[in-house]
């Protein structure tokens, strides 16, 4: 077991790679009631084409299958794992993102028992035709719920507009039609390919004894046998650098317009520190341009073009990266134009050192705040680890960001070819 100490943050992290390849991290948090654990596979909605374990040819699977699998893993021959967790006083959950599927529990008692349940249920799939059919009704309602949600529609609308081929443009849950094609055999195939321990990471954070917990995990894993680890071969989509369509308008039964401007990064660093630098530089740049203390925010707010729903965000995983800027607005076209203008007229030479320092200070404070949250620590640590970086490098990378690194992003991304706009507007009354 390896120990890493982060002195300024007053945190200690323990790490060990299990014999079967599973990466395990433990972060003891004294004073907290809750222990939070995530068991995550490096497998998400974008992994829709790959060579299944033991096969030689690429296979395309139905959209939404990673998310479907996440739902179904909770069901076992003798009942529902949610039930078992709640009997043990824990609350369990799971989520699927573009690139990850995470299973988690939090509990303030019976931590060892709950951890055992987490490891065992994720590592013992049980899919049957009957339960697969039943799930289609439930997920169908989940999809409908999102269909009626204008915030979700506009968010996914921008991504759809930005990408030409990459499956990041496909809704994580799939569609009612695509999930209809899912069968138990397909689920097993995806499971066996992506749920090998060597493709997974376990993170435990809370008031725990790291020695005891690590020993428990070793013992648990030693009891199970897995085929030899094999590198997963994923299909590499060729994605042109420019956006697919410049503008998309979705009429819905809403009262307020919603407008997002998407900025597509033409390329992103594949992994490691370089990737972390890229992501944080993009975030700092957005904060500089659109934060509440920026002149642009003040102006747009005064003009009534934005309100408290205004947000900006940058997402970077594996081989894709995109930013979003927008929210509810009184005039969707005007807001799109204003945001584009801000981006296109930006020049790194006008950025003052003290302004940049202030944004960095803000980011460092926000990072400290997020360390109050066990959920944040486990989920973000896992995300950075899958991208070949470390959560605990955030502060030092922020401190060492240069104006050149930030200027480079603006140069690559702030041009017409990288911008897509999506608007949700009220449906015309007939």
């Amino acid at each position, binding site marked *: 077991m390896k120990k890493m100490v982060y002195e*300024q*943050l*007053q945190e200690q992290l323990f790490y060990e790679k299990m014999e079967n390849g599973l990466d395990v991290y433990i972060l003891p948090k004294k*004073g*907290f*009631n*809750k222990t939070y654990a995530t068991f995550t596979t490096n497998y998400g909605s974008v992994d829709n084409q790959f060579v299944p374990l033991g096969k030689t040819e690429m296979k395309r699977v139905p959209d939404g299958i990673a998310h479907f699998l996440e739902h179904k893993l909770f069901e076992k021959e003798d009942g*529902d794992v*949610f*039930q078992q967790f*709640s*009997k*043990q*006083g*824990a*609350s*369990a959950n799971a989520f699927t993102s573009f690139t990850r599927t995470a299973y988690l529990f*939090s*509990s*303030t*008692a019976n931590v060892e028992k709950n951890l055992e349940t987490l490891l065992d249920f994720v590592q013992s799939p049980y899919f049957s035709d009957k339960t697969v059919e039943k*799930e289609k009704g*439930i*997920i169908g*309602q*989940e999809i*409908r*719920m999102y*269909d*009626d*949600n*204008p*915030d979700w529609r506009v968010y996914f609308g921008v991504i759809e507009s930005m990408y030409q081929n990459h499956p990041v443009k496909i809704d994580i849950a799939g569609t009612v039609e695509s999930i209809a094609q899912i069968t138990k055999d397909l689920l097993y195939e995806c499971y066996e390919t992506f749920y090998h321990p060597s493709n997974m990471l376990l993170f435990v954070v809370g008031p725990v004894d790291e020695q005891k917990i690590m020993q428990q995990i070793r013992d648990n894993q030693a009891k199970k046998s897995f085929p030899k680890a094999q590198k997963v071969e994923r299909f590499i989509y060729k994605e042109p650098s420019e956006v697919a369509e410049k503008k998309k308008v979705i009429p819905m*039964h809403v*009262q*307020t317009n919603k407008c997002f401007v998407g900025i597509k990064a033409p390329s992103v660093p594949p992994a490691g520190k370089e990737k972390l630098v890229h992501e944080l530089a993009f975030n700092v740049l957005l904060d500089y341009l659109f934060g509440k*203390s920026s*002149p642009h*925010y*003040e102006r747009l*707010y*005064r003009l*009534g073009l934005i*309100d408290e*729903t205004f947000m900006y965000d940058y997402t970077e995983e594996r081989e894709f990266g995109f930013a979003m800027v927008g929210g*509810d607005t*009184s005039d969707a076209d005007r807001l799109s134009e204003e945001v584009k203008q801000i981006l296109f007229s930006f020049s790194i030479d006008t950025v003052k050192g003290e302004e940049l320092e202030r944004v960095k*200070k*803000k*980011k*460092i*404070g*926000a990072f*400290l*705040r997020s*360390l*109050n*949250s*066990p959920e944040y620590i486990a989920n973000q640590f896992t995300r950075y680890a899958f991208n070949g970086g470390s959560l605990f490098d955030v502060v030092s990378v922020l401190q060492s960001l240069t104006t050149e690194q930030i200027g480079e992003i603006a140069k690559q991304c702030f041009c017409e070819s990288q911008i897509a706009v999506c608007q949700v507007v009220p*449906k015309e009354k007939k």
Partner: protein
Amino acid sequence: MVNEKITTVQQINVHTVPTNKYKTNTLVWKMKAPLSRETVTLRALLPYVLQSGTAKYPSVKQLRTYLDELYGATLNVDLAKKGENHIITIRIDVANEVFLQEKTPLLEKALQLLADIVLRPAMENGRFVEEIVAQEKRALKQRIQAVYDDKMRYASLRLIQEMCKGEPYALHANGELEDVDGITAEQLFQYYQKTLSEDEIDLYVIGDVQEDAVLQAVTSHFSMPSRNVRSSGGTQVAHKAPEKVNEVVEKQDVKQGKLNIGYRTNVTYNDDDYYALQMFNGIFGGFSHSKLFINVREKASLAYYAASRLESHKGLLMVMSGIEPSNYEKARQIIEKQMEAMKNGDFTDEEITQTKAVIRNQLLETIDTPRGLVEVLYHNVVSKRKRPMEEWLSGTDRVTREDIVRVAGKVELDTIYFLTGMEGAE
């Protein structure tokens, strides 16, 4: 378990919770007044105007620049209803400099800023700045209208409006749209002075702090005007047993129907039966092992979500679910059947044990976050019934099957609200 010290200075109840769990320190300012038609919109506007500028930092940009300099201290405000009370909350969260290379005393600065925000706002001509008020009126209208576009929230709001018609609780915490335009900077400023004088005020300070230092800082920064506090004297329950179930169907262009059902529990935070009510809700619909989730979602496959929640100070129980419009009757029958089962004591000892464990866990997890901790502690202020954290745990543990059935017997169906699609329309 939670070391809360309460001392009143300058007629502010200062609650200090020293802990070194967090990397930040948290300030939460709460002002409480009765919910009423006359003041609901003024009150909904006020904190947003206050957070837009102080005498020292008279614009959003200047104020936010200062917050950024304090290592990205966060400032946010919101409004809530607790029973028939309308509560303004202002929160500031600031990094603890122990974890930084910098040694500025950030908490002291944050407290000073909070005092500036509530006591020394940006002003012109003896009232709030016209431009700020105009901007925030516009933002308030957008905030009120936004509910309409979020069908889950919209359905919950409509259920309350229908169910509590004529009671203050029917008012929305964000105010009423038609009142907004008429508000003037002067009128709002007068209302502001009245709240400072009459509201019950509680300040929570959570983090790496000592009570005496906090009290000293509060004394030096918060020079309150002379106060004439109107105590609301605990939760008022407008208890109305419905004679006939109120059924409301509303049609909109939606794909998923929202079935929301409201009950009167006739039990509130003040009552001895409160823990039994929590247990009742836990078995019925509060969790993923509850009857609603199991029967509506897992067994009948009708919904992605099907759950219930309590309004503790008003005595309401609300069921919510998202279903295919054509499944209305089916879903409603299943929900009603689960309620019947609760009233008949048709639940196992295992469900009781399981629910106790989950409620205990939920409470302990909630108080792991500064925000959650304040919300739990503030129940004691709203209700005038002090329930220490230990009592929450032991009180829940002591609940028996008989207690739950007795509480179930008090629960009365009031209103069924269904938001559904326009069949054949388009």
